[in-house]
């Protein structure tokens, strides 16, 4: 709890538990600034992926449309909804931590995690369906992009699930310092990035003709 009467002395001690003085615009950036380096960077790379896909699609529209027809669009849509649900849980969790003491946050983050797990399960069935039909990463250009981009996204989902576990831990430990709140916000921002990347990937791979 804030010890304003001893605050001037905190700077003198070598004690590392005293929070560093906050820069003036710390709260103008949700989460910590560093996480945005990662998130914006990753979004740029996926933007490149989206562009590369659409460019090569333009060179052989018929191949891509024919191959796309074998995709399970219901799985894709279901996964989009699953991630949206998970993002909502995470948003609520962050708000709970920040404004309401954070007692509901751990179960909310856990629900977000479960949604992530559901996404992985759906992907498992989707990939299996394709692989059992003999469609692999080298079958044709469309499926190359399909497997690689959804695969890289899936790796992000798995990393995100790890992040959600960390958030669950932090929330359970009872959030105290501003850095902890910002860390939780940062983790949430990563998860929302995973959601928004799929929001673009889904129509691009599954729907546009």
């Amino acid at each position, binding site marked *: 709890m804030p010890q304003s009467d001893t605050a001037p002395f905190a700077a003198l001690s070598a004690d590392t538990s005293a929070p560093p003085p906050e820069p003036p*615009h710390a709260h*103008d*950036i*949700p989460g910590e600034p560093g996480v*945005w380096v990662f998130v*914006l960077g990753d*979004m*740029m790379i996926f*933007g490149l992926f*989206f*562009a590369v896909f*659409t*460019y090569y*699609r*333009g*060179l052989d*529209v018929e191949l891509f449309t024919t191959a796309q027809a074998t995709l399970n*669009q219901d799985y894709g*849509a279901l996964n*989009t*909804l699953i991630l*949206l649900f998970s*993002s*909502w849980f*995470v*948003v*609520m969790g962050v*708000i*709970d931590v920040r404004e*309401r003491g954070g007692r*509901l946050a751990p179960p909310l983050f856990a629900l977000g995690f479960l949604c992530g797990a559901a996404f992985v399960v759906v992907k498992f069935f989707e990939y299996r369906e394709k692989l059992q039909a003999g469609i692999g990463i080298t079958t044709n250009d469309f499926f190359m992009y399909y497997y690689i981009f959804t695969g890289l996204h899936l790796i992000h989902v798995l990393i995100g699930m790890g992040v959600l576990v960390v958030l669950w831990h932090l929330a359970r430990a009872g959030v105290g310092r501003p850095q902890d709140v910002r860390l939780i*916000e940062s983790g*949430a*921002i990563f998860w*929302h*990035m995973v*959601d*928004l990347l799929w*929001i*673009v990937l*889904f*129509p*691009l791979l*599954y*729907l*546009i*003709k």
Partner: protein
Amino acid sequence: MKALLWHPATLVWLGLVFATGLSWHMGTGVGADADVRLLSTMLIAVALLKVRFVIRYFMEVRGAAVVLKRLTDAWAIGVFVVLLVLYWQAT
């Protein structure tokens, strides 16, 4: 708990779920005489619109510094324009 639910983010979320359903409906079961180019353009537009809402309301960029708003908007607009150009350029 109730107060938690009635948050702008929840309304945005409902909108996103609806938009997803709409895209799914538009993108599947396309009739043979449907204008696929217009449809696909709309799908891309809806997607990037959803993205902007996720960035603004979920990632809380809505209340953030202008530079962050500009960067994320630039990404959404940039991706939108590039995808449309490349899509329409298809042979």
